[in-house]
């Protein structure tokens, strides 16, 4: 039997197929020219087309965006690839993960133009990262549910462990979800390094429900969201963002005259997102221009409706829906990134065995 011919035929066929696949496309995988600047971010990154086009026109750079998974994944992947990064600028490391990025030498120094316009509360030491946006992780409540039950919605961490609010709250797994972690850190900031465990014991006794992710908590378990209403959800309290009520208005059809949900102002933890110039970036000049752009008023004012976050530079306007339905928390809990770095893993571990087991 002449098996060689058979082999030749099959391999030949294979090569034809492969080359057919190859030729149809390998257009833009080429090297990053100095006229292209690549932004690596998480998959919540969003910007209005016109605003980005405006930057491209003014600066002469073409912006390529690489959304690399959720916030945690994107940071981890950036650290893994830091010797040969996938882009020039990274946007989207928040205060809960900042130290992981800094300790691993993810960024190189650059002070963005306009850094002096950043509001004092958001600034960080050093020039490795630039604060870009902020948001608050807060308990949201279902207005209709509370008026139906003639009950005042909770306003503080303390309220949540009161019998009146038994079995009402759903939160996220602190080890897998960024609002879940934020809520845990908020409680730790409020009750101290030792007190938070006691708080969570009481919260557990008061029937807090924990699900893995924000999507499930908000869309499936929370009775105030559009998804939750369809799913006939029965938890009127959820750990979400201060900007969730505006989203409920903006993404509703027809638009309601007022937000169906509200924010418990005393249950907030402040999240700040940073951007930085990646170590070993190929296009540092373009990267610097892009970082400058992130602090322009044009971009800062464009962020709220795209990413549901608040600007950090002075004088940037926020849309009316935000001021009306989802103002920033007046006195949110905060925590120093260094302290978060020190305790995060331990706390999450003890939280897991305390609440989930």
């Amino acid at each position, binding site marked *: *039997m*002449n*098996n*060689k*011919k058979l082999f030749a*035929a*099959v*391999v030949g066929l*294979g090569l034809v*197929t*492969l080359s*057919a*696949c*190859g030729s149809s*496309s*390998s257009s833009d*995988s080429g090297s990053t020219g100095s006229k292209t600047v690549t932004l690596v971010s998480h*998959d*919540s*990154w*969003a*910007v*209005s*087309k*016109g605003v980005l086009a405006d930057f491209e026109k003014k600066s002469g750079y073409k912006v390529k965006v690489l*959304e*690399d998974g*959720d916030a945690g*994944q994107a940071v*981890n992947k950036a650290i*893994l*690839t830091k010797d*040969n990064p*996938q882009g020039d600028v990274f946007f989207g490391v928040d205060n809960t993960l900042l130290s992981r990025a800094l300790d691993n030498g993810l960024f190189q120094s650059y002070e963005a133009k306009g850094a002096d316009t950043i509001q004092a509360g958001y600034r960080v030491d050093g020039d490795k990262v630039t604060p870009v946006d902020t948001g608050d992780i807060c308990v949201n409540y279902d207005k209709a549910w509370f008026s139906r039950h003639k009950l005042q919605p909770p306003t503080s961490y303390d309220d949540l462990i009161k019998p009146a609010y038994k079995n009402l709250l759903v939160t996220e*797994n602190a*080890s*897998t979800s960024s609002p879940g972690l934020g809520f845990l850190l908020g409680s730790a900031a409020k009750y101290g390094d030792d007190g938070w465990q006691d708080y969570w014991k009481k919260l557990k006794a008061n029937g807090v429900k*924990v*699900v*893995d992710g924000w*999507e499930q908590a*908000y*869309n499936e*378990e929370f009775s105030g*969201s*559009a*998804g939750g209403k*369809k*799913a006939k959800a*029965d938890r009127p309290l959820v750990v*979400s963002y201060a900007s969730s009520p505006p*989203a*409920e208005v903006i*993404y*509703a*059809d027809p638009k309601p005259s007022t937000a169906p949900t509200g924010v418990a102002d005393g249950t907030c933890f402040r999240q700040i997102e940073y951007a930085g110039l990646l170590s070993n970036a190929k296009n540092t000049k373009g990267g610097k221009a892009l970082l400058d752009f992130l602090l322009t008023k044009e971009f800062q004012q464009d962020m709220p*409706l*795209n990413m549901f976050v608040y600007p950090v530079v002075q004088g940037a306007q926020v849309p009316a829906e935000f001021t009306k339905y989802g103002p920033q928390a007046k006195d949110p809990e905060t925590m120093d990134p260094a302290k978060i770095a020190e305790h995060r*893993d331990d706390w999450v571990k003890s939280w897991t065995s305390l609440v*989930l087991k």
Partner: protein
Amino acid sequence: MSRRGAAARLGLMAVPVAFFAVFFAWPVAAIVKRGLDTDGSWQLGRITDVLGQPDIRHVLWFTTWQALVSTALTLLIALPGAYVFARFDFPGKQILRAVVTVPFVLPTVVVGTAFLALVGRGGLLDEWWSVRLDTTVWAILLAHVFFNYAVVVRTVGGLWAQLDPRQEEAARMLGASRLTAWRKVTLPALGPAVAAAALMVFLFTFTSFGVVQILGGPTFSTLEVEIYRQTSEIFDLSTAAVLTIIQFVAVGAVLALHAWTVRRRESALRLVDASVTARRPRGAGEWALLAGVLAVVAVLLVLPLAVLVQRSLGAPDFGYYRALTHSDGGVFLVAPIEAIGNSLEYALAATAIAVLIGGLAAAALTRRDAGRWVRGFDALLMLPLGVSAVTVGFGFLISLDEPPLDLRQSWILVPLAQALVGVPFVVRTMLPVLRAVDHRLREAAAVLGASPWRVWREVDLPMVRRALLIAAGFAFAVSLGEFGATVFIARPDNPTLPVAVARLLGRAGDLNYGQAMALSTILMIVCAVALLVLERLRTDRTGEF
């Protein structure tokens, strides 16, 4: 022929081996090395450390028993279905066969949502009987059956339909009871296919990720979920590496067991065209069986899908569907609807790669004189199914980062990753049928002067055409719904359907949620249509040669 045969086999295997070495073994080894190799010395002590943790042992135990129970449950529920689809003719059979396959290719994020609507709070079960199954292990098991029903129906049914019923009839003619005839004639013939199906179901449920995460809540965790958490959230690469190795060993053991079972059962079967084996059901018993199978399909498979459709129609005038055509510049750089085109292109490329690689591998593995190491290769090809997508995805990042293989941002990475998952399907579907081709037919053709190419075209191809199409269909559908690896590497301006759904679900607001449901429904319909076309294609070509 042995020496030439060996050379040919080596040649046939070269391409699949190279493919797996570069796009699977190397990336996975790189990420494991990153986790366990600090400054040139391997921290193998970590293995015992990690295994000593009660949490991890609990995860191992849960992973194993839920997979065993899921597999048993799936076989129990789906084998009657395989029989009905193989042997009975009934109206709407083609459509139904496509429908039962849809769940298999839907991304877990969609299925999880649909299942919650069914067995969760306020779901249908809750409304009718006040039964809630979410965050219980039952929800996980049911979803596993939902996903894997088609694996059994297709893998076992595909072969069953081609078994010559006259053999069983002959046995009965010779005095065997119906049961004895089935047990002595049909069961041994089906053995390899049942084993293959059971193995696949076990693999999928052992490595289950999305289902467990969404339906089980944070209290249930499989090995795969734990690897994901350690890699992606906690960034403890050394624990993740140890868990990856454990999963590797476990999956390898299962595959070895499977190879052994298949070898024992291997026999040349008399295959006939499927169209002559199916007939209308006869007698009350057969009608009842058909009705029972249809009822199971309706409740277990169609109902969750129906809930999805119902939710997608929540806005008047198909509002959610119309919204898909707008680019809001926010969640997406392009209108979500464009994800359909992307998905189809990626899936086609992935199918071409998978059929080529898998076909070559299957051809090499068919040879009778296959040695032990060739069989080992058979098992090796299945390994990608047992390795976490996050491991492969992170591995791609750190291994495929230099020319000529700096593919990290290339479009081809998506079909490559999808093909990795598709190849085992191609091999698994083709191999039982290829092996069942009587080798004497090939020898006879060769003796009569046919070239090997002609032997393949005139002997093998007509007999395996059906399996090849099923294989291609599976590879295509799996690629279409593949989520785990794709979400790591798909570019934002080219999201696939499942990636787009996940991103819509990740945002608050009615419109986003509705669009996610609408897009899921579209994905479901695209899959159903693709599978239906396949059914058609298959029948039309029957008897062409």
